[in-house]
């Protein structure tokens, strides 16, 4: 598998705060890569730096071998990276259909666009029933579906997903992650998935990074990470049985 996306030593300032401090990560074609971390770890900043909404202070972002560091976000989007932002950011007063069609704004292949629209509505049948309704009337879960569908309508080669599970019920989360996996497998879209909710993100991923206060502290294949004691305890909330299980205060993460 070849690399489609690579960030090297990226440092990004958020105002006067350095939100990410020298991040390097690679995403292989056709894979799902997740970046896990708690609030304020810098997850969103990574995605914004890749998609061009923030310009890095240092470092380089490459997409399919091309340097895309600090290009305008619309240029990067047209190059083939779709960013589905945190908090959905749907166009509130536009209809569901117009929202989806805005994803396809830059595409000329009308027949393909129509087919992709059908695909999205097939994945999320609830959107079909609200097709002419303004997006603001949708529930949070439906808006998340809309944001995902809209990103897919760009026919990207890489999708950047920022916390698709945010504020959703467990049932909806699993439904949405199934579709994410389907888009990945059936449509061959590479995913870079940023999540606080490691217990849903990690099982869906092939490879994972753990981010803490702007640094990558751990990385590995899914199965390796799933077995790591630190990940199990701090991110998945699975506690190892032990005779002195209440000594959590003494527990140290391996990276500190």
């Amino acid at each position: 598998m070849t690399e489609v996306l690579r960030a090297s030593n990226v440092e990004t300032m958020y105002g006067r705060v350095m939100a990410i401090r020298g991040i390097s990560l690679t995403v292989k074609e056709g894979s799902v890569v997740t970046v896990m971390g708690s609030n304020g770890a810098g997850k969103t900043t990574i995605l914004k730096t890749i998609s061009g909404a923030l310009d890095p202070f240092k470092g380089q972002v490459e997409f399919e071998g091309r340097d895309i560091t600090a290009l305008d976000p619309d240029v990067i989007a047209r190059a083939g990276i779709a960013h589905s932002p945190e908090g959905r950011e749907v166009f509130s007063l536009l209809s569901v259909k117009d929202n989806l069609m805005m994803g396809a704004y830059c595409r000329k292949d009308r027949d393909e666009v129509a087919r992709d629209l059908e695909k999205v509505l097939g994945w999320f049948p609830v959107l079909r029933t609200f097709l002419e309704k303004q997006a603001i009337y949708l529930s949070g879960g439906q808006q998340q579906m809309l944001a995902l569908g809209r990103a897919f309508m760009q026919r990207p080669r890489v999708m950047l997903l920022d916390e698709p599970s945010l504020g959703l019920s467990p049932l909806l989360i699993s439904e949405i992650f199934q579709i994410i996996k389907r888009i990945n497998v059936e449509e061959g879209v590479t995913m870079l998935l940023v999540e606080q909710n490691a217990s849903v993100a990690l099982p869906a991923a092939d490879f994972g990074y753990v981010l803490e206060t702007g640094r990558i502290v751990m990385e590995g294949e899914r199965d390796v990470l799933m077995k790591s004691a630190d990940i199990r305890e701090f991110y998945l909330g699975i506690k190892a049985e032990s005779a002195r299980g209440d000594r959590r205060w003494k527990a140290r993460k391996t990276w500190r």
Partner: protein
Amino acid sequence: MTALSFADAMQLFVVGLSQGCLYSLIAIGLVLVYKATEQVNFAQGEFMMLGAFVGYQFIVLMGMPYWLGAMLTLVFMGAFGYGVEALVVRRLTGQPVFTVFILTLALGIALRAVAGIIWGFGNYSLPAPVDGNLTLGPVIISWASVLSIVVTAVVASALYLFFRYARQGVAMQALSLNQLAAFYMGIPVKRLTSSIWAMSAIFGGIAGLLLGPMTLVSTQMGFIGFKAFAGAIVGGFGSIPGAVIGCLLIGVTEPFFDIMFPTLKGIGAYLIMFLVLLIRPQGLLAQIYAKKV
């Protein structure tokens, strides 16, 4: 107070209507820019003045046929509006809103001065595309007024259809609702924003070409922009149908107000704005949902 006959009232109504239409054309330009970028272009009245002067240059000074001169004027205004955004306003992205206010105020002053230097500070007459009057029973309307009503109706409906059905129109709405998300979709936000300024300058130019024959062309004619501003506020700043309704309301009541209260001539528009702000501060047709910032 003087009693008005029905015929007089109708006459005033029609005059007010055509005046209101001109206000609307300016207000549409204001609201377009405001909706897309949350910037208020205080130079919109001066854009109109510039349109009138450029039309005067082409049609009167250079002797072009009217429609050719008018067309070229609108092309010039489009390029001018595009340039103002691309070269000046865009540099202020990310600055506090009032910097753009001050900038456009200054631009208005500068445009008045430059127009005066180029064309002079006097009053100049611009021919109307149509002459004569339309007589409807006791009511006499100049064809120029009829034209301004028709043009406004055509422009407003064309704009409605554009925003409803055209891909670019929907994208302009999208970027006004959520600029960052529009960027993420690959929508060329910068180009579209400049185009919005171009459209708004073109509407200013149309208003200038229509108003010029009625009031004479002068560097002071841009002050009518303040009435358009009042109309846009009455309608709920940010709504195009609202701006049209607000401007028509102001245009139609103004001549009646001036006749009834001659001592208060000229402030009717602002009184209406004041009343609307007191009773319904969001304007007559405000968008129900506040924009997420």
